[in-house]
């Protein structure tokens, strides 16, 4: 047996012994997701147990180095881990912006001290992070951001406003883009980390069309940020920000797995499928979804050996989110009048409709589809003037 096969057996029996049965059920609502953090309330004992057991082995972030709370898995081993989890339907033990976004950026740009400290906290699910990028006047044109950090010797004093800050009201810390040089557009931004309980930080939830309020306006009023809480060099935060966006886009694209890659025709048909035109659209959708699933696998395989084009996450994000929107349009059509119910018990509180509406943000958050296409045209296709 090859080393990898041995490893697979090892993972398989560990999962068998340690993944609680409840944690092998599909995630049906937000409460099923373990976000971690100081104020996180576990939904049940199984969720807590599953997290603790994975933390002890470094399995919340399997491919991070052991020194930073990971399990130090090679790319091939991490793929085995994902496959084995998928095989039994194991939920991710921990989901967080720390894992998906800040972690990779710290691994590349952080100091040794920052890595040990912040990555460890993320891996153990102790600190929940939010992302302070967008501002009212700076969405797609992010680099025009105005939030300003004034140099006060050993610290900055930050003033300004962020918007669309997901989970700002639940997060413990924020990674935040702050202008530290007004004369320099791209090379005048710094990447700062600070505690959301710092005096001067306030948040105000925004109600979405889905009826939920997962994100906020975030205000900074003379917020003191110590100088050592910067990632990368002063005024070079844009490099960190862009690198992080690559990982964010990859995450939103669904390339790493999850239901975004699944076909839906067979699931819909279980409740009857009488309309031949709808069936035909479902079949075409399944072709696209299954093909995109292959793309996700190929993208990860190539990314791990440095073979993927650096701008490829933009393509993945574009394709994956447009596909997911189409998925939910079809699910709404298949559901008929039942899918329109907003708060009934049998729809789990209007889950089909709310999920459908939520997916409309997929092609906006983390960079819009139009911006993704701009980046592909410029960086991959090398089209003129793009």
């Amino acid at each position: 047996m090859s080393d990898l096969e041995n490893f697979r057996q090892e993972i398989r029996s560990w999962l068998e012994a340690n993944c609680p049965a409840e944690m092998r059920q599909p995630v049906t609502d937000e409460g099923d997701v373990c976000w971690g953090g100081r104020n996180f309330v576990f939904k049940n004992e199984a969720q807590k147990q599953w997290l603790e057991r994975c933390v002890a082995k470094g399995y919340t972030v399997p491919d991070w180095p052991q020194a930073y709370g990971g399990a130090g898995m090679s790319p091939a081993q991490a793929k085995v881990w994902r496959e084995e989890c998928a095989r039994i339907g194991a939920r991710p033990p921990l989901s967080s912006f720390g894992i998906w976004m800040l972690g990779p950026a710290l691994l590349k740009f952080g100091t040794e001290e920052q890595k040990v400290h912040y990555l460890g906290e993320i891996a153990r699910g102790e600190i929940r992070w939010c992302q302070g990028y967008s501002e009212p006047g700076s969405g797609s044109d992010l680099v025009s951001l105005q939030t300003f950090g004034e140099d006060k010797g050993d610290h900055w004093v930050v003033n300004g406003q962020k918007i669309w800050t997901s989970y700002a009201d639940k997060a413990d810390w924020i990674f935040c883009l702050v202008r530290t040089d007004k004369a320099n557009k791209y090379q005048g931004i710094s990447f700062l980390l600070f505690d959301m309980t710092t005096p001067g930080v306030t948040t105000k939830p925004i109600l979405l069309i889905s009826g939920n309020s997962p994100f906020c306006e975030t205000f900074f009023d003379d917020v003191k940020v110590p100088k050592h809480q910067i990632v990368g060099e002063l005024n070079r935060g844009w490099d960190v920000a862009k690198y992080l966006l690559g990982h964010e886009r990859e995450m939103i694209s669904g390339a790493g797995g999850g239901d975004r890659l699944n076909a839906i025709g067979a699931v819909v048909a279980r409740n009857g499928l009488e309309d031949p035109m709808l069936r035909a659209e479902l079949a075409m959708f399944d072709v696209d979804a299954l093909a995109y699933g292959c793309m996700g696998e190929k993208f990860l395989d190539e990314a791990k050996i440095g073979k993927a084009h650096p701008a490829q996450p933009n393509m993945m994000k574009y394709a994956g989110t447009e596909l997911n929107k189409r998925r939910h349009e079809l699910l709404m059509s298949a559901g008929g009048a039942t899918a329109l119910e907003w708060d009934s018990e049998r729809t789990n509180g209007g889950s089909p409709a709310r999920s459908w509406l939520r997916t409309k943000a997929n092609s906006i958050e983390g960079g819009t589809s139009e911006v993704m296409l701009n980046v592909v045209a410029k960086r991959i296709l090398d089209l003129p003037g793009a």
Partner: protein
Amino acid sequence: MPLYHTEDQAMLADTVTGFMADEGGIKQQLRYYRDMGCQDGFGHALWKQFAEMGLTGMLASEADGGLAMGHVEAGIVLREIGRNLTPSPFLTTSVMGVTALSGGSDDLRGRWLPGVIAGDSVLAVAIDESPKHRPERIAARAEKAGNGFRLSGNKSFVVQGASADAIIVAARTSGSDTDADGITLFAVPKDANGITHENLRLVDSAMASNIRFDNVELDGDCVIGQVDGGRELLNKVLAAGRIGSAAELTGVGHGAFDITTAYLKTRKQFGRLIGEFQALQHRAAHLYSELEIASAAVIKAQQLLDGGAEKAELMVSVAKAKAARTCNLAVREGVQMHGGVGMTDEYDIGLYMKRDRSLTEFMGDQYYHAERVAQLSGY
């Protein structure tokens, strides 16, 4: 298995890419043979070169003198054939024909494979009997007669059928037209009595034959595999043709895409390169994305097929449907973005549009395969 080429496969790809661009280019091959009105629709000299490169016998076993490679490797060749629109009997002969013969006896393989591997002979595959791909329905009949069979019926869209030294025919030896069982594959020599060809030029300048078999006498040793039990082998041949045409389609799509983006970087209107217009940039970027996804589906299906995985059948249909839809988008966008010159014979983009149509139809189009995806998924 990771979804990219191994080192050996990447080396093969390098060699084949250079070879096809140098020897199989549009001017030397497609236009040359088209303009001379060639009745084969391809050049035998290039086929001989394929043999010298070892490509003709890629899928044949080592014992048969081949390279015992798989669909990933064959797909590498087909992709370059697609990119250069190279007219070649490779898909019908070396991919589908060899797959069929590999299920035959030592004698049968000994009779046909050496010629194929040497680049001296060509095979064709006769399955469909109507303008649309419907291999579930086979009406051509081979009745037992003495030691052999007597074959009668019609086969349509047999690519390179009139040029082939042997035609692999799927015929019914028992049961009714739509039965799954009762199929037998035959290797029918071109000079057998009672074969009539209606040799037709297709839109892409390939030649295809509508063949009429009229009481064609066949020896028992023309049978490939088992009498009445040929459906399984037929399915292998179909899978080979489907994934092969899907791979070729991604080559056609990429070829069309490359010349189109090159055109966007040279043509000026309104005082600017047309590639500066966002309306075109977004469509080009969307197309890029679709081409990447189609290529991923194709390599996945190839790997599954080579590994004998159960899911291969589903993924082959996913790959063919996705490749067909994507390549079609590529050639339509290609002609449109070329403006008026896209409509001229002088520019190559129109040739890509024609090839796309033929290949999409070959072994089932996107509608046929999306339907199969639905059925195989259980709805």
